[in-house]
């Protein structure tokens, strides 16, 4: 039997409450799968536990219940097979841009020679358009450039799954737009499987194949899986004219504004009931 690339089964995160026997459930009954090469975004209000899901996938946090399988194998602890791009870039400030990328490359292929590591790192720095800034320290780079270095570091290790935690959240709108296009370009070349968290509805539609919608916490759930039926390659300026664009956008906004609060009043009976509703708005 063939497994999907990534399977999340009945995942739950809770913390012990103030009184004995009480528990504070952040989210529960999260069930979804991701196929190889798919770009999946998660949208939800703050506090619904989307970052926690990403950290569990990265192996940095532990689930209270449920399983995560990659290639049918249980995930335990962090791994180079799962690269992470953090919201606050998390570059090592005492290393130059090139050395930061090389840090990942060296960890991935410890037996490589120094030239191999440098060449490979430079290739990815060039991919994000930072070849000229290779010798600069993160403090000498703008926010957008730092996140580019961070993205280069993650892509350079060629992980099977790339996890991005609101990678553009701290950037201004113009820079964000430019890096989004670059991300599409790199993703088009490498066909990475990406799991990304975002707050931005337009960003999600531009980038992803599928959008997972989460209800509000506590007791948050992955309620819907919306297919983005817009052909690739996509351009920011073009997709707004696509007939499905506003249908999808309105559906997402409606969910976030009106429905994200109601969903978790429905009690969780079984695993089946927690499977997200598949939504396809293609005309």
């Amino acid at each position: 039997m063939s497994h999907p690339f990534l399977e999340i089964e009945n995942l739950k995160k809770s913390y012990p409450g103030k009184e004995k026997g009480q528990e504070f459930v952040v989210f529960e009954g999260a069930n979804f799968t991701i196929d190889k090469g798919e770009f999946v975004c998660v949208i939800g209000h703050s506090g619904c536990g989307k970052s926690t899901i990403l950290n569990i996938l990265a192996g940095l946090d532990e689930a209270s219940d449920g399983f995560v399988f990659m290639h049918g194998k249980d995930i335990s602890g962090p791994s180079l097979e799962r690269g992470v791009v953090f919201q606050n870039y998390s570059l090592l400030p005492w290393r130059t841009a090139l050395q930061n990328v090389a840090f990942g490359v060296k960890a991935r292929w410890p037996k490589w020679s120094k030239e191999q590591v440098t060449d490979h790192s430079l290739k990815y720095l060039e991919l994000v358009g930072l070849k000229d800034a290779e010798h600069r320290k993160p403090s000498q780079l703008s926010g957008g450039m730092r996140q580019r270095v961070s993205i280069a570091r993650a892509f350079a290790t060629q992980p099977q799954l790339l996890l991005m935690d609101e990678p553009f959240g701290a950037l201004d709108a113009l820079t964000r737009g430019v890096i989004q296009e670059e991300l599409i370009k790199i993703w088009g070349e490498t066909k990475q499987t990406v799991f990304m968290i975002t707050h931005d509805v337009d960003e999600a539609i531009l980038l992803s194949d599928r959008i997972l919608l989460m209800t509000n916490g506590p007791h948050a759930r992955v309620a819907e899986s919306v297919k983005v039926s817009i052909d690739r390659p996509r351009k920011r300026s073009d997709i707004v004219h696509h007939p499905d664009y506003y249908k999808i956008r309105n559906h997402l906004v409606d969910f976030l504004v009106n429905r994200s609060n109601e969903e978790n009043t429905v009690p969780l009976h079984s695993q089946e009931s927690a499977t997200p509703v598949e939504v396809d708005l293609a005309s």
Partner: protein
Amino acid sequence: MLNSLRVKSTLLSIILLVLLLGIWEGANQAPADSKPLTEYELLMGGASQEARVPPPSDVIALGWKELSDPFYDAGPNDKGIGIQLGYSIYRVLVGFFLAALIAIPIGFLIGMSPLMYNALNPFIQVLRPISPLAWMPLALFIIKDSEVSAIFVIFICSIWPMLINTAFGVANVRKDWINVARTHQLTPIQTALQVILPAAAPTILTGMRISIGIAWLVIVAAEMLVGGTGIGYYVWNEWNNLDLSSVIFSIFMIGVIGMILDLLLAYAARWVEYQE
């Protein structure tokens, strides 16, 4: 603007120096005698009955003489200032580096493990406030060697700032950088050397800088107790010789060497500094 500020401050420093030396010089002149000395006064070596602090001109003249031949050795009671300072610097450096060798690894351990922190913290809190000189009798009794005892006192006084700063620096490395190490599957040793050490290095260097300052303060007192050689012994010996010019000159030299030691570590700190 900055340049003119620097010029002004330098000028002001020089004026203050000249003013201070002038007052010092003027206040400590032997009174000019109007009458010729009596036979008794001649026998007693002058009219002035009051001992005076030597004026700066005497100190500078002595300093010039000492510094033009700093390494002469005319027996145990008469060695050049360079030799005495050399002994002191040697003791401080040996004690300091031995302390670093122990304090930094233990600081790492305490900083990385809350268990070790809680277990060792009471010991540190009790041992840290003890004046290093209080250890001297015990050290002399156990070690039975005054030279090694002096080094031990330096060791024990330099260990605490380095230990505490290392532990603090290591414990406060940003969680994100640790997560970067974890997602890149670095071994604990690799994480310690490639992420935690460079991240904590500025804090560790600050601890080392505090330590060497304290060590230099303590060596003078320790050598006064231990005797034999060293700048601390020299100051006390010249006091016994009632050579106050030498006392003042060596006080000045203690200050200069202390400043140089601090500058060296400040320079080293710049190598490991980073901007976030």
